């Protein structure tokens, strides 16, 4: 569990103990929580009271759950999660910080071999790599002839490597932006294709619908009884007219199905 830096941990174990306020999470309290959540005015007061109660609990009070309840009122208020920590914190005995910005070489105490400010990555990287090769060659010379200069040369090679890695790490946001541009271009292309396909299909469907309408209009006016297809041989001629009308309807229905399927596949 994260604590303020400088506070001693209670027990040194391989895995941390659960926080003391876990005893508040009873079934009854959890059931009351949604009602509490609706009352937004008390949220901030509850959070501040909770933070103080947690600090008191982790300082080693004996009956921490009773103290937590007694210090600020009804138990459900303490079910609200604490605010995220900002700045420095201690976890598993090590100090960390929420600030994840890449530190400069000067902040890390490493000599910098490239200029400050915005740099051109290509020439700087190539120069640093050439310097590294030259220094490796010089290192061989020193190992053979001037062994007293071994340590400074080894340090220089180490600093060069750190410089190169630092420049490459500083390049990563640039790489991320370029990747974002590629993803957006692909996304735009897909949307434009989909819109174009849908428009073409709609134009085609409209054309077929108008064709079907024209066919329907040009058909003779047939009554409902005559539209029923009679399979007997005597009525073969009349049934062909009814079949033509029903086939136009079928075409309409088919057009509707095709349009629905196309819309589903696009969306």
């Amino acid at each position, binding site marked *: 569990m994260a604590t303020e830096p400088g506070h001693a941990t209670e027990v040194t174990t391989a895995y941390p103990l659960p926080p003391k306020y876990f005893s508040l999470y009873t079934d009854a309290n959890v059931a009351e929580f949604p009602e509490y959540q609706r009352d937004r005015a008390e949220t901030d007061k509850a959070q501040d009271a909770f933070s103080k109660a947690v600090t008191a609990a982790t300082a080693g009070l004996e009956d921490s759950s009773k103290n937590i309840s007694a210090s600020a009122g009804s138990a459900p208020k303490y079910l609200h999660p604490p605010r995220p920590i900002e700045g420095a914190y201690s976890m598993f005995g090590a100090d960390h910080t929420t600030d994840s910005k890449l530190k400069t070489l000067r902040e890390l105490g490493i000599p910098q071999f490239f200029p400050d400010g*915005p740099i051109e*990555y*290509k020439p700087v*990287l*190539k120069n640093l*790599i050439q310097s*590294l*090769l030259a220094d*490796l060659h010089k290192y061989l010379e020193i*190992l053979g002839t001037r062994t007293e200069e071994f340590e400074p040369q080894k340090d220089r*090679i180490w600093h060069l*490597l750190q410089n*190169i*890695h630092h420049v*490459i790490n500083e*390049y*990563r946001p*640039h*790489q991320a*932006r*370029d*990747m*974002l*541009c*590629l993803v*957006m*271009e692909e*996304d*735009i292309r897909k*949307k*434009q294709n*989909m*819109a174009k396909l*849908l*428009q073409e*299909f*709609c134009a085609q*469907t*409209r054309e077929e*619908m108008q064709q079907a*309408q024209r066919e*329907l209009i040009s058909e003779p006016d047939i009554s409902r009884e005559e539209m029923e297809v009679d399979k007997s041989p005597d009525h073969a001629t009349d049934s062909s007219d009814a079949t033509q009308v029903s086939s*136009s*309807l079928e075409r*309409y*229905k088919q*057009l*509707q199905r095709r*349009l*629905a399927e*196309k*819309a589903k596949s*696009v*969306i």
Partner: protein
Amino acid sequence: MDRVSQLQDLLDKTVQDFATALLEIQNNAPPVAVDPSIPVTFVSAEQIQAQSEAVQAIVQNTIRSITTSTHQMGLLIDSLPGIDLSQQDQFARLKALDEENKAADQALEDAVAEANLLMRQLQAGIGKST
């Protein structure tokens, strides 16, 4: 693996190869007499010759490996994504793409609306016919 990570791995590999070669040369180096009056006798001349040849082979391999790695690093640097664009160019490109994305969204919404309208017309047409 992305090119930036490949570059970092290649850099580490180059220096690692160099360090490994130094260690192997040190381990395979033939013994040298400290005093001319006390010659080295625990190894034969043939063994010394073999060790020298092994050291030469290590040196040649390492030189080849480092040269290849350096060349590959140069190629990777030249092909890093967006290497020829400055930060301002990237921001301008992102802004333009954002506008294009909004236009593409609008075009797709219009196409879907047109399709829905056509669907309703078809349904109405079928309803009237029946």
